[in-house]
């Protein structure tokens, strides 16, 4: 039975909240400004810290879903499926965040709401894959079958990620890029903010996962109780 009060989780949640505040400060104010002409460009560039950290979590989450799927197929244990589901849900939200933050960056930097550059394109495809995964789960009633199908799709779709990446990269290099990339080199102050955000977001992801997994386990407990009392 899942506990009602969970101190480590509480600590982690508070910690990730604090870290996020610090990260926010660093991103918006703390890190040095980029060496760009326009003021809007300089402000827009600050989104890179959150944007890339979000993308990192978005793809990490899918890897976890993949692992969860494999784990379930091999052991048939519900826990693996819960992990896969939780990660997929969180990943979907983060992926949406990538698309939105990418869009927010694009407008002041390049004057358009969307660019078909390789990273955004693959993020879009990844987002659609996530949606497909969640839709698939919603159309299967039987929990065992749902877990199996989701696991299979998670595996098949995960294999496609690197292939997609290669394909899109090839596609983009055959045509001259419309917009150059902004990376170049990052100043030391920026590097710190960058990695801080990566770590913060990862911790935030873990906290979210823990909460979501716990929620799902509680749901399972309720369902089991219902079956016992009413079934």
């Amino acid at each position, binding site marked *: 039975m899942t506990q009602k009060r969970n101190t480590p989780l509480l600590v982690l949640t508070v910690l990730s909240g604090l870290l996020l505040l610090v990260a926010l400060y660093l991103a918006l104010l703390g890190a040095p400004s980029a060496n760009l002409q326009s003021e809007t460009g300089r402000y827009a560039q600050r989104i890179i810290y959150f944007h890339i950290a979000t993308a990192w979590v978005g793809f990490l989450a899918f890897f976890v879903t993949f692992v969860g799927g494999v784990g379930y197929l091999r052991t048939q244990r519900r826990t693996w499926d819960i992990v896969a589901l939780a990660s997929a849900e969180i990943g979907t939200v983060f992926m949406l965040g990538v698309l939105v933050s990418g869009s927010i960056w694009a407008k002041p930097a390049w004057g358009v709401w969307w660019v078909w550059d390789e990273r955004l394109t693959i993020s879009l495809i990844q987002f659609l894959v996530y949606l497909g995964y969640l839709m698939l789960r919603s159309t299967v009633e*039987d*929990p*065992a079958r749902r877990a199996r199908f989701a696991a299979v799709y998670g595996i098949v779709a995960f294999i496609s990620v690197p292939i997609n990446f290669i394909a899109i990269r090839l596609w983009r290099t055959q045509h001259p890029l419309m917009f150059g990339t902004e990376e170049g080199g990052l100043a030391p102050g920026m590097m710190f903010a960058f990695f801080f955000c990566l770590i913060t977001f990862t911790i935030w992801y873990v906290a979210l996962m823990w909460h979501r997994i716990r929620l799902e386990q509680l749901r399972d407990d309720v*369902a089991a109780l*219902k079956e016992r009392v009413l*079934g």
Partner: protein
Amino acid sequence: MTAGAPTVEAIKLTKAFGHHAALRGVDLVLEEGQFLALFGPNGAGKTTLMRIVATLTRPTGGSVRLWGQEVGRAATSLRSNIGLISHDPLLYGDLTAEENLRFFARMYALPANGTRSALDRARIDAVLDQVGLTARRRDPVRTFSRGMVQRLSIARAILHDPRLLLLDEPYTGLDLQAADMLRGFLQDLATTDRTVILTTHSLEQGLEVCDRAAILARGRIAWMGARDDVDLETMKEIYRDVTRAA
């Protein structure tokens, strides 16, 4: 195949769909050549049990052995000795009766000494004759009546001469004429040395042909015994008691 091992051996079989337990610990032993009639109300788990024995479904817990072998690994080869007749006819409507049987003959890789196709044809002819569909062999199955479909389904199930035959409520949806034919078939079946499990709602029809009977209620075997120990009236009483109490 272990010599002398029972044909079907289920030990503490459980099957859960989500939180709903369809089978809650079924123990069953069936020896070669026995004919078991399995009774039980709807939702008792009869179809689930049949599907597990047919290797279509994996149990959640417990084990099933066929001819002494665990179903898990050996499933693929075990299937060549199992025949199943269920609610669905498992036939292709666009194909003719003959083509359907030819397909299944290939899928079961009927023993081939000599020309495969010649042997297939001989077997198909024999089976069609047995179910009385020789005249309609070149007609697409979608033109068949329910009774004819059932007959062809039987043909399909016995085509590969399985040692274990499973019939899951075969009387469902049959008119009088088809039901009579089925009765005849089951009576013939009882005289052969095939091992058979028949699930049915009708105590009468089941007792007519079986030599062992069992009642499945709420996912458990509530009663099991030899046919010769009971008559129809006693059976009805036992059935009522057992399904009420469960």
